[in-house]
């Protein structure tokens, strides 16, 4: 595994003494899409800003593409594209000049064909001669993306790219992100929307109060989420599970009054029919049945609550 962004024990204390990052360690793999989830004020923007050079870190180290972001800032920053959370654009300039400026600022030679490709991809080509102030909010956000892409970054940070964006445009953006990934760009995006993380991320990180609470392959996470639990309450408590039920993923509750069966909802057969038959066959009489499913939302809320207590 090659980490294109390598963060070691990163801490950030703002001037007022507020500790926004409390030692974050994170390795971002080349070519992946990482979604960072977290409530307001979790430190997502602070983390991104520190990587990109907008804020200084208090302790720890950050390397991008092997370059230290402080010492080799040129090497590191020329790999990075940033789409900020806030819409910060020069209102009186045209789309075209703004994008051209970004490319030049990053030291890339003028390439109008490339910029045209980006603007077309983001459906901004028709608006290239418009001044930024004449654009809608969603268009402005796409201009920000165009600016970040204008200098062909290897790592792209998208800080809440779909906040305040309508459903259709959100789908467009996901397509754009998928396209970028296909081109080999590493993408880190922050979002409040769990569906968004589910839809496009390879890995999901949960951050709260300046700490990374979880980072996991989305597939594993989804597998965990795809699992459901069936609780079978028994008429009479038992001391141990009867023999012959060893093939099932079963646990007996402490009081012996219920049996919990964990199964995969996405599998072809859940095995419930057979289990119930086998339970009856083992001489147990059933009183009630319940099923439970944990969603990413549950995990997320659980983690965040844990962090708060």
């Amino acid at each position, binding site marked *: 595994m090659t980490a294109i962004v390598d963060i070691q024990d990163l801490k950030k204390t*703002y*001037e007022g003494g507020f500790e926004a990052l409390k030692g974050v360690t994170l390795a971002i793999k080349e070519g992946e899409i990482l979604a960072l989830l977290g409530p307001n004020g979790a430190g997502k923007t602070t983390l991104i800003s520190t990587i*990109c*050079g*907008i*804020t*200084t870190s208090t302790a720890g180290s950050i390397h991008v593409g092997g370059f230290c972001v402080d010492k080799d*800032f*040129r*090497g*590191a*920053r*020329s790999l*990075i594209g*940033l789409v*900020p959370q*806030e819409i*910060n*654009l*020069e*209102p*009186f*300039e045209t789309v075209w*000049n703004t994008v*051209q*400026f*970004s*490319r*030049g*600022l*990053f*030291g*890339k*030679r003028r390439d109008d064909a490339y910029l045209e490709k980006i603007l077309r991809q983001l459906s901004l080509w028709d608006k290239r001669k418009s001044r930024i102030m004449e654009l809608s909010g969603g268009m402005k956000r796409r201009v920000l993306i165009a*600016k970040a892409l204008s200098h062909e970054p290897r790592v792209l940070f998208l800080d809440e790219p779909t906040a305040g964006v309508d459903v259709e445009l959100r789908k467009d953006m996901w397509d754009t992100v998928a396209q970028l990934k296909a081109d080999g760009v590493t993408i880190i995006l922050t979002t409040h929307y769990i569906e968004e993380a589910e839809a496009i991320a390879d890995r999901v990180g949960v951050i709260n109060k300046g700490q990374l609470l979880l980072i996991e392959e989305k597939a594993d996470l989804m597998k965990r989420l795809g699992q459901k639990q069936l609780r079978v309450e028994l008429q009479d408590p038992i001391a141990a599970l009867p023999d012959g039920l060893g093939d099932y993923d079963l646990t007996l509750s402490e009081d012996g009054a219920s049996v919990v069966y964990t199964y995969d909802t996405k599998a072809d057969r859940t095995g419930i029919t057979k289990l119930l038959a086998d339970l009856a066959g083992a001489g147990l009489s059933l009183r009630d049945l319940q099923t439970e499913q944990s969603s990413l939302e549950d995990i997320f809320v659980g983690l965040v609550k844990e962090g708060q207590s």
Partner: protein
Amino acid sequence: MNWTAIKAIYVFEMARFFRTLTQSFISPVISTSLYFVVFGAAIGSRIDQVDGISYGAFIVPGLIMLSIMTQGISNASFGIYFPKFIGTIYELLSAPVNFLEIVIGYVGAAATKSLFIGVVILATSWFFVDLTILHPFAMLAFMILTCTSFALFGFIIGIWAKNFEQLQLVPLLIVTPLVFLGGSFYSISMLPPFWQTVTLFNPVVYLISGFRWAFFGLADVPVGLSLLAIAGFSALCMLAVWWIFKTGWRIRS
């Protein structure tokens, strides 16, 4: 040096200037004309000549200096304050550029604008008075140096300022008085001895004196001293800018 980046900043900043070109052009023409009418006609009718030069011609270097100093400051301070204000500074901070490149881009553009205005004023003056420039290259050099160093100063103000009031404050409260009291419209030798000494503490005196020497070969202070003053001022500003970017003062939280 990332020259592509410097060029990008310079071109982008100049675009702002070109958008308002007529405005940039007309206001110095009008204000210069007004100065000539007020100072030239009203005062000039009483003061015929200063050091053997007609009063109208005598005030030209001072007028140009007054404009390029205030313009240099306001262009540069606005140039860097505006991205801070609207938030586009994030891009500068995240770009692979060092402080020198940012400064060259912004200060270069601001200096170019004030140089343009200086030239416009000079051209306008020709309509009002007879001018012969004794040392044209020295004149140009002084003009460029002044534009650059005051743009540098303005750049610092733009970073320091936290709101629009502060942006106006330094030019209004410090620079304009210093320029007016710096011999723009009179020769230091016209003052009583005590005030002559006081005036020598005003750095602007040295700039105007040197500039006027380039026009007429007359100076209140030696030309070398004028050059030293402007070099010293630029160096001081450069040092301040270097420190600002090293510490991230008022730009990086």
